[in-house]
């Protein structure tokens, strides 16, 4: 079982003061799949990512990544193992141009050991490599956009920059915290093939999303969180038919805008 599981989370709990943000959440992610995490606002999705990636200390529980216990490791050590994450609240380096934002992850021990992007050998200096990554993620190569200050980029590009920062590390698993939110329909439409391409490149993805329809186009399995507890898990159609899930989402406009294409 654990041979094909790239990530195995067991009984993770976290309280903030009196608030039970997570209660004994367990799930596992298989190598190569796109795994969705959904749930109403404040259900603990971001907290779960923070616990897995070491940004906050969990109260109890265990996280295995590639069969290695990473429960108490520092975020930078975890990132160097190839487990990266995006931030729901985007965190670019505003005072640097977009392409220089990527020099930072390219400077990490992991990227340096790989000698470039995804072990591509000597691909030239880091500036060139970052332009390549940005092109791959949807920045037009011959435009001025990669050279613009991150502070002047619109949301769509900042979301892509978040993903690009993960890619620069040459990751095996990316935890995406709402990469679709705040984007227009057409921007999302252009992001979906990107996600599919990452999957084809062998990268495993965990995606927190409120945009269920778009999520279900790429995710093979989803897990539902509610008030810090796991409600259910399974293929999207089955999960969304579940009465408890409908109840959790009751009154939330997010469900109203969801419908199956089938």
């Amino acid at each position, binding site marked *: 079982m654990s041979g094909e599981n790239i990530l195995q989370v067991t009984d993770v709990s976290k309280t903030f003061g009196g608030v039970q943000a997570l209660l004994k959440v367990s799930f596992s992610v298989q190598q190569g799949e796109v795994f969705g995490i959904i749930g109403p606002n404040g259900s603990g999705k971001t907290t779960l990512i923070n616990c897995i*990636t070491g*940004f906050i200390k969990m109260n109890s529980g265990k996280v295995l990544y590639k069969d290695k216990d990473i429960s108490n490791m*520092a*975020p*930078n050590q975890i*990132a*160097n193992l190839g487990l*990266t*994450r995006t*931030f729901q609240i985007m*965190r*670019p*380096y*505003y*005072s*640097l141009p977009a392409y*220089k*934002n990527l*020099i*930072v*992850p*390219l*400077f*990490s*021990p*992991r*990227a340096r050991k790989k000698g470039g992007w995804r072990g591509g050998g000597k691909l030239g200096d*880091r500036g060139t490599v970052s332009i390549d990554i940005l092109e791959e993620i949807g920045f037009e190569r011959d435009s001025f956009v990669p050279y613009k200050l991150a502070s002047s980029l619109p949301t769509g590009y900042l979301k892509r920059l978040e993903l690009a*920062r993960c890619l*620069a*590390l040459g990751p095996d698993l990316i935890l995406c915290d709402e990469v679709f939110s705040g984007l227009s329909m057409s921007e999302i439409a252009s992001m979906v093939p990107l996600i599919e391409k990452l999957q084809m490149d062998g990268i495993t993805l965990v995606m927190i999303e409120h945009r269920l329809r778009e999520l279900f186009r790429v995710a093979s399995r989803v897990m539902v969180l509610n008030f810090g507890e796991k409600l259910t898990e399974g293929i999207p159609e089955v999960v969304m038919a579940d009465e408890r899930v409908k109840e959790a989402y009751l009154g939330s406009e997010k469900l109203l805008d969801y419908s199956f294409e089938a």
Partner: protein
Amino acid sequence: MDKNPGTAERRKERLDRGIKVRTEGIYAISSWQEVSYLVLPRLILIVGLLLLPFLMPSLYWNRVISIVGIYALLALGFDFLAHYVGLVSLGGSFFIGVGGYIAAILNKSFGLSPLFTIPIATLSGAIICTLLLLPALPLRGVYFAIVTLMYPLVLFRIIEALNILGGTDGILGVASFPNTWVEQYLILSIIILALFGLRRLVNEDIGLVFRGVKDNDQAVRASGLSITLYKAIAVFITSALGCLGGAYFVHIYMVAGISLFALDYSVIPIAATVIGGGGTLVGPLLGCFILVPISELLRAFGTLRIVFYSVILLAFIMFRSEGIMVYAQRKYHQFERWVKV
């Protein structure tokens, strides 16, 4: 601002000068005009600094040059740490004290000449300062500043109370430089090297990591880099500059006393950065060349000079809060025009 009647209907537009754009890449070497656009400001700075010792009216003012140089090292370090790494340090007197005492001990107890004491004090002092500041690195903003300020106060009291390292008298009879020309030109060369070295560093890849730590330390951690490590490297660089200044100082005055821990070394570099323009590196350096001599001129007024000093500083903060060099660089690189809105 200057003259902007009716801001409602028009605003100032700033555009990069054509020559600035043209000189950004390899094309800079395409004509003499462009080469001089790039080289001239640097040349004027270097030549100006190297001419200074000749222009001084008396030996007393030659000595002031060396002191300015020491403050310039502190100001460069402060500006680097504050504007490129995001750590506000009040540790100037800490670095001066540690570097100064090490150099004095090496000279008096081990008989080493300044040629050796200065480099050794710079390196070992920087290591000691960095190690002592290591626990404070996770602290943000004012808390880090407080710790950097606490150490010199503590060391001052320890030396005083235990009567070690010469106690309140200090370590006397430290070797001096061969002559005043060596003394001045060595420090001037050092600050020129430090200035251009730091300017280069902040644009290298590791410099971008430093700036990333300032902009957004969580993203740096998510990028697989230890923020503590890079903060420590930056603190090492800043304390090395400060310890170098301290070692230099004891060889100028031939004494290492508890006055090395004076608050001036922590405060004046910050004032110089405010006046010169934070984040420009060259600005704080020039700020020292303005502030320190003024402070010397005001010496005649005794303790009242603090008042004059504060007034000058206040005036700057209120009327030119961006600092001299930020203003000058903008005028040099961009032109302005009024546009109707």
